[in-house]
């Protein structure tokens, strides 16, 4: 069933565009070149963060952190292997992506850990970055309860990612 979501979506948007007398192909090209611009800004970031993250994983520091946090994660039913991702996710999107890819490669993309990592990456945001951009632009100094509420959302996301992977697969 889920196999058809993406091909159908691709066909659906093209058919809808034709129906509206738009040009789906040139729109796709427009969008793709915007995506390429995004990618160009992403490449240097990924190179540097992958270097840092690969160093972190080679050093054995991740094992130490994971071991330390493991009881808390096990209590909530979250695979302790994801500890480092959970710590980095709210702070840096690219670092979380780099760590997530390392974890998926190590444990297997279709393993429970690999899937949990993917769901975590797909359903959460870089909380602190978002908060600083929005409040910065709006000239807000007193953020009141925004940070705790956003962290509640993040923690729910991490917990639910592990739970849904256990239930759905």
């Amino acid at each position, binding site marked *: 069933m889920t196999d058809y979501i993406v091909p159908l979506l691709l066909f659906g948007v093209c058919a809808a565009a034709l129906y509206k007398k738009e040009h789906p192909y040139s729109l796709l090209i427009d969008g793709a070149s915007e995506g390429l611009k995004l990618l160009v800004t992403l490449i240097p970031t990924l190179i540097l963060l992958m270097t*840092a993250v690969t160093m972190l994983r080679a050093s054995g520091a991740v094992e130490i952190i994971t071991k330390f946090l493991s009881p808390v994660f096990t209590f909530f039913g979250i695979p302790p292997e994801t500890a480092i991702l959970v710590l980095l996710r709210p702070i840096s999107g690219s670092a979380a992506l780099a760590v997530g890819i390392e974890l998926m490669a190590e444990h297997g993309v279709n393993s429970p850990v690999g899937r949990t990592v993917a769901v975590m990456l797909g359903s959460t945001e870089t909380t602190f970055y978002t908060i600083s951009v929005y409040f910065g632009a709006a000239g807000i100094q007193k953020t009141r309860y925004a940070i705790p509420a*956003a962290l509640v959302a993040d923690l729910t996301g991490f917990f639910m990612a592990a739970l849904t992977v256990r239930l759905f*697969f």
Partner: protein
Amino acid sequence: MIIDWIFTGIVLLALLGAILTGKGGELAAAVPKGAQAGVTLALSLAGSICLWTGVGKVMEKVGFTSFLSRLLRPFLRKIFPSTKSDPVLSGHLSANICANFLGLGNAATPMGILAAQRLAGRRKDGIASHELCRLVVLNTASIQLIPATVAAARVSLGCNTPFDILPAVWVTSLCSAGMGLTAAFLLGKVWKK
């Protein structure tokens, strides 16, 4: 910038970890290996990211966005009561939520910022209003139809069914946004200045 501290912090942690575990050799080898992995990763993500920003663009053009914002109107009025009297704000907010939904992060942020500035303009004391806090919470809990980057990453690792995680991603992000907003409502009742 916070990323400076994160990068330096990660390198320091790696150094301390290697000294503790005696993995100096592995650490040194990881430096060029990691940089190379960054290039490989970026290239393997290229196809999917470009394709999905393209699809997002078509969806926007065929009016999917305005369809979504009609669906969203009752929800917006509940969470952001000011939208009842401010159609411009309502437009910014629904554009922000829709762009997030379609995975167009680059379009979502400017719209969200416009909405945030309009909300902040109502009071000039630099204190976040309830509605502004809710806007930020909503944006930190991403609700996405197609998490393209993650799917691309899974493909690059040899996964044949990169989208089998979609239902799990949808349920998870709805729960986290719901819990975040609930927390914001509850905290808003008890929080002092």
